[in-house]
């Protein structure tokens, strides 16, 4: 899966509010092998996956806690045989269900069953606008063609479709064409998300990193299409933060809006959080979601602004981006509590500049390390 686009919603920053969204990584199994996948390198095994009854309890606890939207993700959530049953359960709780899928493994019958179960929305990934390149990125022959069929079934079932495309060096010149493909497939919404470097994406950073000029051209192209297609398709654009001035408000701020549950039941504020040393993450077997959300030391570690060092502490953007991404600070500086080095004012900003230069220095054609289970 790729890192999700953060919910846009109002919430006061002073007191701890209830989470709006739950990302349920139902399984780490996946037929595709995308090199940008943000899942951890240590993919969780089938034997460790939560069973149906426990997932249902997790969703019930989430609804009681105030979660409104559940993102059924992975890995590939279709690999779970109990997916329809889980959707029925979520729907009975009034939860908004979003299926985040590669489409591989879906049949028309299963899609219709999911639709009847009360599924609210489907988000389908595409890897490129051109079949050969898309299949090479996915590491799966025929994926591109299969996805076109899946999109048609989604529309036929009357479900709203979002197309998600992760952008990187191999497909960046077709960013605009991916928007056009999404329109042609009947999507009401498209996510053009420049790669964020977590998990497998971090391993493949050199191979994925676009050049500065191509990144700027792609951003301009997509922004122009936003106006052109207003009223037809909503474009959510996640710009490449290595080439930006300020960091993103990762997850809308640490433990502020959403939480993740991994296939084995670990509860995380974001799905790369496990990389941060020194934090202990509880599982859904150890405590209730509410207890973990409000009281666990890991969730409170970077909540709000009190934990911030300078320059964030006295920066007027600290309630806007919350000092950026903790996992990115860790990955680039070795210390999760520093300002996200993407920020031009961060003491470690040079590190980002050096990485962002990979492509422009001609470090070309680094082979992919495809995502795979150990």
């Amino acid at each position, binding site marked *: 899966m790729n890192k999700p686009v953060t*919910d*846009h919603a109002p919430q006061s920053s002073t007191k701890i509010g209830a989470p709006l969204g739950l990302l349920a990584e139902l399984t780490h199994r996946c037929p595709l092998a995308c090199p940008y996948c943000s899942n951890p390198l240590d993919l969780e095994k089938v034997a460790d996956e939560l069973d149906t009854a426990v997932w249902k309890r997790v969703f019930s606890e989430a609804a009681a806690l105030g979660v409104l*939207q559940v993102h059924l993700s992975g890995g590939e959530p279709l690999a779970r045989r109990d997916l329809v049953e889980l959707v029925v359960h979520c729907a009975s709780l009034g939860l908004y269900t979003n299926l985040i899928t590669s489409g591989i493994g879906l049949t028309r019958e299963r899609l219709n069953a999911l639709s009847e179960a009360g599924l609210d929305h489907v*988000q389908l990934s595409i890897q490129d606008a051109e079949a050969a390149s898309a299949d090479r990125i996915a590491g799966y022959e025929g994926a591109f063609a299969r996805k076109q069929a899946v999109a048609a079934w989604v529309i036929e079932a009357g479900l709203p479709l979002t197309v998600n495309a992760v952008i990187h060096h191999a497909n960046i010149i077709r960013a605009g064409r991916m928007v056009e493909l999404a329109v042609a497939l009947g999507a009401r919404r498209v996510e053009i998300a420049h790669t964020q470097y977590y998990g497998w994406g971090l391993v493949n950073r050199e191979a994925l990193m676009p050049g500065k000029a191509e990144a700027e051209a792609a951003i301009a192209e997509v922004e122009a299409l936003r106006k052109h*297609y*207003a*009223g037809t398709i909503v474009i*959510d654009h996640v710009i490449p933060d290595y080439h930006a001035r300020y960091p993103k408000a990762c997850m809308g701020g640490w433990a502020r809006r959403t939480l993740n549950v991994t296939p084995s039941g670990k509860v995380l504020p974001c799905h790369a959080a496990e990389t941060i040393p020194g934090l202990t993450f509880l599982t859904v077997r150890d405590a209730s979601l509410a207890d973990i959300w409000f009281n666990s030391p890991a969730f409170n570690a970077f909540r709000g602004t009190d934990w911030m060092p300078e320059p964030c502490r006295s920066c007027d953007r600290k309630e806007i981006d919350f000092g950026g991404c903790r996992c990115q600070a860790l990955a680039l500086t070795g210390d999760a509590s520093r300002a996200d080095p993407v920020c031009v004012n961060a003491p470690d900003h040079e590190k980002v500049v050096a990485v962002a230069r990979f492509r422009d220095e001609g470090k070309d054609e680094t082979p992919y390390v495809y995502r795979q289970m150990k």
Partner: protein
Amino acid sequence: MGVETKIEPTTIPRMPRGVRLKHDETRDEWLLLAPERVVKPNPSAIEILKRCDGKANVSEIVQALAEQFSADPALIERDVRALLNELAAKRMLDL
């Protein structure tokens, strides 16, 4: 393709599948749920959205709201049109 869809008095605004207005018990407020979005509508938007049931047309919605709030229909109509245009552009309402 333009943002402004022509809104006639007979236009029936409809919340498409994947968009719902929900009263959230935890926060005790009305929220509009949409793909990857949770939006908190303002009080007048909430009243308008409650009446977008896929049956009432624009003129019926305006009339009902004008009666409910003893307000000038022309002012209500302006608010209704502005909201419908805004949400249609975001694909949260079909016109």
